[in-house]
C-alpha cells in the first residue's frame, strides 16, 4: 500500500507545509501509522547556500556525545554555521529520536567537490556514528519524518511554520521491514528526495550495485537505494534524465526491437550497462531532483524538478493533475482535490513514462 503525493509550483511560489499535510492525511488509509514524512524545497531561504543536515539522534541522556561525534566529522571539511534541535511540538509523538539540524559550509578549497564530499560525510555518519542517522542533506530543503500518522508527524514538526515551492509526502504501510523513524519516507541524499509506494524486489542487486560506488544502505528498507541510484546515474554519471529513467524502469525488449536503429542501440546499451540499476518490482515514486540534471536535448536544468514514475507494468497507482502554476502527482485523485478542488487537468501517466515538471 503506502500513499504518496507531491506538488510543485512552476513559478516557485511558496506554499505553507500544512497544505501537503492535509493532502497526505486523506491518504492515511493507505498507511498504518508506522511512518509518515514530508520534504519541503525552498524552506530555508536564510541559509540557502549552506547544506542543511537533518540528523536523528538516539534519544538517550548522552545524546550530546553523538552531536560531538557528528561535528568531528563535519569539522574536517568545513564549518557548522549553526546547529539546533529541529523545533518540535512535544507530546505529539513518542520521541525515539531527537531530530537535530546542522547548517554547514565547506571550506573554499573543497567547493568544487562539495557534493561528493557531502555524500561521503552522510555515508560516514550513518555507517560509523552509533545512534546518528542523517535523513536530509540538501541545500534549502528539509525532510521531516517519524513513526506516526500523517497529521501527527506534521504537527510534531510544526510543518505550518515552513514555506516551500515543492513538497513531497508519504504515508507508510511497512511490509517487508519494521517501521521506524529512519524507515519513513522521503529518502534523501543531497537535493534528491524520493517517496515510494511499492517494493523494490531487486533491492539486493541494486544495493550491491550502489555500494560498489561507495554508497551505504543503512536505513533497513528498500527505498533508500532509489535515492542513491538517482544520484549515481544522473549527477555522478551525468546520464540524460530520460535515459536514466529508462534504466530505472527499462523498456521491454519487444518495444526496443520496434524502435529506430539509433534509439534501439541506445536502449540496448542502457539495459546492458545499467541492468543492476533497474528497479524490479511494483513501484510508484515521486522524486524531487538535484540541480544540474541533463536532458536528452542537451538542456541543463538549473532548478529542482519533480518527477513522477511508475514501474513499466503499472503495479501501483499514480495520477497527475494541474491547476495554474501547480502540478500534482499522487496515489489518489481525491488527495489532490482535498487541497485543490478545481483542477485544470487530471490524467493517468503511462506506466514507466515519467512526468517531469520543471520550474518556468
Amino acid at each position, binding site marked *: 500500500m503506502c500513499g504518496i503525493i507531491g506538488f510543485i509550483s512552476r513559478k516557485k511560489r511558496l506554499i505553507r507545509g500544512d497544505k501537503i499535510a492535509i493532502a497526505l492525511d*486523506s491518504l492515511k*488509509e493507505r498507511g498504518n501509522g508506522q511512518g509518515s514524512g514530508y520534504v519541503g524545497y525552498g524552506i530555508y531561504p536564510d541559509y540557502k547556500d549552506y547544506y542543511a543536515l537533518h540528523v536523528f539522534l538516539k534519544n538517550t541522556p548522552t545524546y550530546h556525545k553523538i552531536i560531538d561525534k557528528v561535528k568531528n566529522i563535519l569539522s574536517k571539511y568545513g564549518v557548522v554555521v549553526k546547529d539546533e534541535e529541529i523545533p518540535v511540538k512535544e507530546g505529539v509523538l513518542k520521541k525515539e529520536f531527537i531530530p537535530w539540524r546542522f547548517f554547514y559550509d565547506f571550506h573554499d578549497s573543497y567547493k568544487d567537490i562539495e557534493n561528493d564530499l557531502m555524500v561521503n560525510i552522510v555515508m560516514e555518519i550513518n555507517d560509523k556514528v552509533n545512534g546518528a542517522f542523517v535523513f536530509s542533506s540538501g541545500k534549502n530543503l528539509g525532510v521531516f519524518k517519524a513513526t506516526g500518522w500523517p497529521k501527527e508527524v506534521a504537527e510534531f514538526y510544526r510543518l505550518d511554520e515552513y514555506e516551500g515551492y515543492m513538497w513531497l509526502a508519504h504515508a507508510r504501510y511497512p511490509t517487508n521491514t519494521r517501521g521506524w523513524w529512519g524507515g519513513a519516507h522521503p529518502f534523501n541524499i543531497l537535493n534528491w528526495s524520493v517517496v515510494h509506494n511499492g517494493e523494490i524486489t531487486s533491492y539486493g542487486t541494486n544495493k550491491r550495485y550502489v555500494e560498489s560506488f561507495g554508497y551505504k544502505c543503512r536505513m533497513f528498507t528498500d527505498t533508500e537505494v532509489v535515492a542513491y541510484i538517482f544520484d549515481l546515474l544522473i549527477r555522478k554519471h551525468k546520464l540524460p534524465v530520460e535515459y536514466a529513467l529508462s534504466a530505472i524502469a527499462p523498456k521491454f525488449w*519487444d518495444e526496443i526491437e*520496434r524502435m529506430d536503429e539509433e534509439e534501439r542501440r541506445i536502449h540496448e546499451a542502457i539495459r546492458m550497462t545499467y541492468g543492476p540499476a533497474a528497479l524490479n518490482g511494483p513501484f510508484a515514486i515521486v522524486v524531487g531532483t538535484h540541480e544540474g540534471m541533463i536532458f536528452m536535448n542537451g538542456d541543463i536544468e538549473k532548478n529542482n524538478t519533480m518527477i513522477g514514475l511508475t514501474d513499466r*507494468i*503499472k503495479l501501483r*497507482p499514480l*495520477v497527475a493533475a494541474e491547476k495554474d502554476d501547480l502540478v500534482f502527482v499522487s496515489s*489518489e*485523485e*481525491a*488527495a489532490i*482535490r*482535498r487541497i485543490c478542488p478545481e483542477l485544470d487537468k*487530471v490524467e*493517468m501517466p*503511462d*506506466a514507466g513514462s515519467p512526468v517531469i515538471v520543471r520550474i518556468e
Partner: protein
Amino acid sequence: MENEEMVIIDAKDMNYRELNEKIHEVLNKNPNIKKIVLKNVLGQRYIGNGIQKRDLTIEIYGVPGGDLGMFMSGPTIIVYGNTEHAPGNTMDDGKIIIHGSGGDVTGHSMRGGKIFVRDDVGYRSGIHMKEYKDKFPVLVIGGRAKDFLGEYMAGGMILVLNIDREGKDLGKIKGRMIGTGIHGGSIYIRGEVDEFQLGVAADIKEFTEKDREKIKGYIEEFCNYFNLNEDIKEKLINSEYTKIAPVSKRPFGKLYTHDLR
C-alpha cells in the same frame, strides 16, 4: 428521516466508515427509498458495497474512493466525477455509470451487471471478468483503456469506443498486453489493433455482423446515458471493430500438464 423516497447526504469531510454506515442506516429506515444523493464525496471508499436492491439509484457528486459498488447486486450508481481504483469490483448485478474516468482495475472480477465509463479507464480494466449462465458482465469504455485490458478475462464483454469528449475519434489505440491470459469472453475495440498489442492467449477474431448486433444495444445505452447525438451513435454502431478473444477454447489447458495425454 424515515420512509422517504429520496435522501441527500452531505459527505463533506466524512470518513468512509461514517458515510457507509449512514448509507446503510438510510436503507434500513427507508424501505421504499428510490434514490440516495451523495454530495461532496471525496475519496471515500466502498460506497454501495454489497447493497442488494434493484430499484435504488445512488447519485454521487465528486470523486468516490476505491472499490465503488463492490459486491453490489442490483442498484444503479451514477458518478458525476472520476473514480479511483476498482469501481464495480466483483459486482454481481446493477449498473455503474461514470461521467468521467475510471481508475486502475475498473470492473475488477465483475460477475454480472454493467459499467459505463464516459472517458478513459486505467490499467488492467476488466481483469478477471467472468460469466455464468445468465450472468454476463459488460464494461463499456467511451475513451481508451491502458495496458492489460481484460487480463485473465474469463467471460463477459468489454467494449472500447475510442472517442473523446466531443465524440471525435481518438485514433489507433496505444494499449499493450491486451487480453493477457484471456480464456473466455470477448473484447471489442473500435478501430485497428496490432498483433503485438495483444497479450499471451489473446487472438484477433473476425468481427462479424453477429458481433455488431451483440454490441449495438450497449452502444445505444451508452449514447443515451451520456447524451451523444444520433450521428455519433450511428458512427459508433457502424464502425469497424477489432474483436479479441481467447486463441483457443482452453489456452492454458496444458500449462502444467503438457506431458500428460
